[in-house]
């Protein structure tokens, strides 16, 4: 598999001095970290600013040894203390040992079939354009350090922590699948979860081709082509996820996961949006709405896959509900964490980068200082008309960031509470470590 990965990585090597390292450490899907819709020029400049990270640190991550503190100091945010990042990496790499294999590239494994190496060829044609797909592809393969959303890993850990109601099912499986106490179908489910999330990210990268946004003919052509590839790759992942689900031979699981896909889609249609479908907050937007919107966009998939993996293990309704609750809380805290990144990680998101206007800090700030809301709503057709540096500054000075941090902690604590109901085990501990790492990594 590593040979295939390097093949794919080579195919996607980007210009502008970026190197994609052939092996990656921790799992990521960086897309929702900042839900930024960069304008073309900014995307290009961002790409050139992102540093290349040495292959050795990835190799270390992959095989579970500690990442050296020195490398971390160079790359982590100067505002944060050094110890926080190793906690996260350590937690994840320990966890990966527990479930039996590195969970990186779970979503991309299916992309490595021959037919689909066609995609890599097509994506390469997009190099030099500003289509969001390129950024998504880069992030999927190229390790983003701050990404904490390891869905597949969490699902696997939860499966292990909860145990299996029918241990003889595990016995039947192949010798190779036996380690880690997680059945083959549960592994498959973890992979499917990652696939669906990736597909959604890719589809979100489709660009609205309004002529006013792209007056230049060549750019329009690039964008059209990029859209085509984005749609097809997303569809391919989704269809693979569906066939994978069907192969599980459990209709309740299929139903759960399909409804979570519907939820994703609903989330995209909520509220007011500009011409590129960026969300714009409305008056009186409360945190309940934030919660509702993010339940649909992020919580639903996580919660339902946690529930589904317990269904596969034959657990009771009660346990399934706990799994659901756990997944939901962890998704909320991830989302709050992601919302805070533009304000905490000034290295990756220098002031001026676009961020999600319906994210927690913005909403919390606007609740107490409505004049900012007026400014945001004055942007008219497109959020490009706003001065994000000014917005960034104002919010940093206000209560938004602090309250956002509290929100993240609150949900993380709730997740820990639910976890306490599970039996003590190394998997449970690994989950607790991961949650602690989220809480401290702010």
């Amino acid at each position: 598999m590593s040979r295939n990965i390097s093949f794919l990585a080579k195919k996607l090597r980007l210009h502008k001095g970026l190197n994609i390292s052939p092996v990656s450490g921790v799992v990521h899907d960086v897309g929702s970290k900042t839900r930024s819709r960069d304008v073309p020029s900014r995307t290009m400049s961002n790409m050139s600013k992102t540093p290349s990270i040495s292959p050795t640190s990835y190799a270390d991550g992959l095989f579970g040894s500690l990442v050296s503190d020195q490398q971390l100091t160079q790359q982590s945010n100067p505002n944060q203390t050094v110890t926080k990042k190793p906690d996260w990496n350590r937690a994840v790499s320990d966890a990966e040992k527990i479930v039996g294999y590195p969970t990186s590239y779970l979503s991309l494994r299916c992309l490595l079939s021959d037919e689909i190496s066609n995609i890599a060829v097509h994506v390469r044609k997009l190099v030099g354009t500003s289509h969001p797909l390129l950024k998504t592809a880069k992030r999927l393969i190229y390790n983003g350090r701050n990404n904490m959303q390891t869905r597949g890993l969490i699902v696997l850990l939860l499966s292990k922590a909860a145990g299996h109601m029918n241990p003889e099912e595990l016995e039947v499986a192949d010798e190779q699948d036996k380690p880690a106490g997680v059945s083959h179908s549960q592994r498959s489910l973890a992979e499917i979860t990652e696939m669906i999330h990736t597909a959604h990210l890719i589809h979100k990268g489709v660009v609205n081709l309004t002529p006013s946004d792209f007056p230049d003919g060549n750019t329009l052509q690039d964008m059209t082509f990029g859209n085509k590839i984005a749609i097809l790759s997303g569809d391919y992942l989704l269809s693979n996820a569906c066939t994978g689900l069907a192969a599980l031979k459990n209709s309740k699981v299929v139903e759960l996961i399909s409804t979570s896909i519907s939820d994703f889609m609903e989330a995209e249609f909520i509220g007011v949006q500009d011409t590129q479908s960026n969300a714009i907050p409305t008056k009186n937007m409360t945190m309940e709405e934030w919660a509702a919107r993010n339940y649909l966009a992020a919580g639903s998939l996580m919660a339902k896959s946690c529930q589904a993996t317990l269904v596969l293990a034959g657990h009771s309704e009660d346990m399934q509900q706990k799994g659901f609750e756990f997944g939901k809380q962890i998704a909320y805290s991830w989302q709050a964490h992601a919302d805070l990144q533009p304000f905490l990680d000034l290295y990756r998101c220098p002031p001026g980068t676009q961020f999600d206007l319906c994210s927690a800090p913005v909403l919390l700030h606007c609740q107490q200082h409505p004049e900012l809301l007026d400014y945001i709503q004055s942007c008219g057709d497109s959020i490009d008309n706003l001065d994000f540096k000014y917005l960034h500054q104002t919010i940093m000075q206000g209560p938004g960031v602090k309250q956002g941090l509290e929100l993240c902690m609150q949900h993380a604590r709730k997740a820990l509470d639910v976890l306490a109901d599970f039996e003590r085990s190394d998997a449970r501990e690994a989950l607790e470590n991961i949650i602690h790492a989220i809480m401290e990594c702010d």
Partner: protein
Amino acid sequence: MANAAAGRVRSLFEGLLLVRKCAIARTNTTPSVRWSQYRTIHESKEHLPKLPPGGTRRCDTARRALSTSSPARSVQQPGAETRDEPDTGKTTDDDIKQMFTDIVQELSTTDNQLLKDIASYYFDGQGKAVRPVITCLTARAINSHTHPHRRFLLPSQRRVAMITEMIHTASLVHDDVIDASDTRRGKASVNKHWGQKRAIMAGDYILSVASTMLARIRNDDVTLVLSQVLADLVQGEFMQLGSKENENERFAHYLRKTFKKTASLIAYSCKAVAILGGADDEIQEVAFQYGRNVGMAFQLMDDLLDFVSSSNLMGKPAAADLRLGLATAPVLFACEKFPDLNPMIMRRFTEPGDVEKAYRWVMDSEGPRQTRMLAETHCAEAIRHIGQLKPSPEQRSLIRLTDTVLNRMK
């Protein structure tokens, strides 16, 4: 005899939904006149601007198939009510009428009005609804085969028909964005109206609702079978992106792609309703093969109509395939007479004047006729397979359906 046959054919046709959608059935000529018309045109070897309506060579086979039923019916007067046959048409018709309302209802479980509007945009009853009709008829035919003397449609089979239509529509929505089409079914496409992003999300939404419905049927085999369709649809699109250098491979590639894009959905949904109807493997295969052959014929005729029909009737622009750079059956057949088409195919008709030249050459060649013959072969195969079922009104409708497929004008 000819009059009686004509009368019966007419009354049966009136029962089928396809009559409403198919302009041909409104003609009033008798089969013998239609047959001679066809023969003249066919033998003069002119290219086919407008396909002759109604009776074709299929008439013979259809009549032969009809004769397997009780002979008493063959002297039916036009318009007379019998116990069975008009009923079939009515019930399938009712199934379909109700279907679109039900689909819209399933899609409206969300609170979001915009999403509801976009998702329901194509379910207004304007589409041909070929796939649900085939699915329902096959379901009833299989049911009559496995449960003789009873005629019914299971709710789960009906739901499979709905799922089929939803999957088809979702793929249409995505295809329109991929192909950058502005019109579909006579009105602005979803991406034109609401933008590409929302179109994609709406397509995914329809698909996910279809998936949920599929799961609720609680039959693992059916779920497996229909999710295979999704994989095939996407693979078909990918195959369309690439092109084969070798001319010999090209046609095989085209046929495989046609199966994946069109025939797969019909074939697998027929198989799914067969499974639900309690059919054994052999009968499931019959259903699958019928669906596959009809699907192939349907797409071949679609590709042919792209060349010979006018854009008004189709609801979408004509010669669209050429403009998209796609080399379909008529073009591939025409390569024999005009080898200069080959480099044009390789460069996907991108040079100025390519589309027009190719169009003229294709119309000048044997391409359209050969395409039609291939479609007829598939229809014959389909009839051969479905003939293995016990006779029933639906089985006869399915046979007649191949006629309609061959004689579509839109």
